[in-house]
């Protein structure tokens, strides 16, 4: 992790509908950070990730990426390719698992595709099913393929929307290890939305809590869990109902 800011969010508002709006007064994500986004269903985690990916425009406020304003409508392809997102319900393309993992590399006409794809498949334990048709996979396998097709791109920023929600503990460990590896070797900035408090504590160096579209608290993971500044955070991490 460096001291250089990757994302800077100021007075950000995203109005989804009459009942929900995401409000973030201030949030900085440093390069190489692994930031865990915690919060109940509907808190705004996925909305925030989409904004960070430049997939949706903000209603008001400012997002800066690498010190430049991130505007969804004006985002260049080069900037977009620095950020990769694994969606909550990943959609795979027709064809084999290997073809899906290779997809992003083919878009970029990258070199050493075969070696990179082999490595990504191996890292996530997908080598035995590499030739299998993607539409025959289980929910968990689909998530692993979605993760492999994102990791193979070695992005500067990786946005993960509950990427291990359908995985068994062994595969969760495998996925976390693969993501940790890329984070260490590439200094990738990761924003990881999860419902799993233990996972957040394992993988993130900083953690934040979203409730009803509001950023309640953000801080170093250890302090967040052991000595939270906000009573609502304390209630949340101790499993008490706060929403």
């Amino acid at each position: 992790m460096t001291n250089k800011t990757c994302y800077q969010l100021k007075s950000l508002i995203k109005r989804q509908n009459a009942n929900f709006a995401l409000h973030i007064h201030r949030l900085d994500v440093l390069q190489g950070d692994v930031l865990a986004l915690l919060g109940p269903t509907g808190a705004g985690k996925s909305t925030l990730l989409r904004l960070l990916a430049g997939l949706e425009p903000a209603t008001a406020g400012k997002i800066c990426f690498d010190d430049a304003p991130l505007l969804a409508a004006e985002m260049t392809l080069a900037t977009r390719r620095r950020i990769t997102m694994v969606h909550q319900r990943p959609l795979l393309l027709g064809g084999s698992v290997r073809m899906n993992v290779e997809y992003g590399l083919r878009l970029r006409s990258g070199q050493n595709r075969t070696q990179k794809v082999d490595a990504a498949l191996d890292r996530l334990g997908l080598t035995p099913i590499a030739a299998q048709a993607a539409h025959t996979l289980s929910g968990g396998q689909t998530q692993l393929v979605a993760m492999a097709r994102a990791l193979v791109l070695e992005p500067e920023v990786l946005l993960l929307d509950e990427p291990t929600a359908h995985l068994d503990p062994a595969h969760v460990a495998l996925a976390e290890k693969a993501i940790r590896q890329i984070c260490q070797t590439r200094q990738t900035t990761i924003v990881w939305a999860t419902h799993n408090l233990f996972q957040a504590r394992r993988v993130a160096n900083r953690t934040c809590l979203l409730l009803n579209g509001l950023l309640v608290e953000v801080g170093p993971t250890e302090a967040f869990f052991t000595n939270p500044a906000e009573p609502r955070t304390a209630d949340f991490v101790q499993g008490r109902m706060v929403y």
Partner: protein
Amino acid sequence: MTPFSAAEFWSILRLSLWISGTAVLISSLVGIPCGVWLGMSRRRGKRLLAAVVHTGMALPPVVVGLVLYLLLSRSGPLAFLDSLFTARAMIAAQTVLALPFVVGITMAAVAAAPAELPLQLRSLGASDWQCRWTILREARHGVLLAVAAAFGRSISEVGAVLIVGGNIQGHTRVLTTAVVLETGKGNFEFALALGGALLLLALLVNLFIVGFSGGRPPA
């Protein structure tokens, strides 16, 4: 005595394939991009355009033939093309009839792709064109169905090609107009045989299309 020689039969068959094949090719080149654009578009007015395209699927061939006849006739605005009673006019008529099928079915196939797919492709680094191409590839079975339907519409069409082609022996006589002619002359057996050849041709083309879609029938 058979009404046609073998050479003439093959010439009719070749001309039928040439005219319908060209019409399907033109309508695919124009209609597939239009269908993809309409299928992915979230703009206002899309529903109205979709309704227009669907209405085009119900275009009466004789009306299309009549309008083209009036446009291409000596007193029509397109008389300078000198295309009436030629294969070109028949191709134009079949293209007009096939185009709404290509656009409409492609549009439906592309629109059936999950709404989230373009976003997920973009988050993997796809440009707008790469995104459209990938969605078209995902909808390829539907697109092949569109091409098959357009070919079926073209090869079996009789009203329009009879009006603008004139059923001239050796020039504009195709399988359907030959069936009409032979039926009129009372050569029912030969007319039925020509109808069988027409069906066989349609079957062969559809088998080719199924083969092209990886052995899976387009659906």
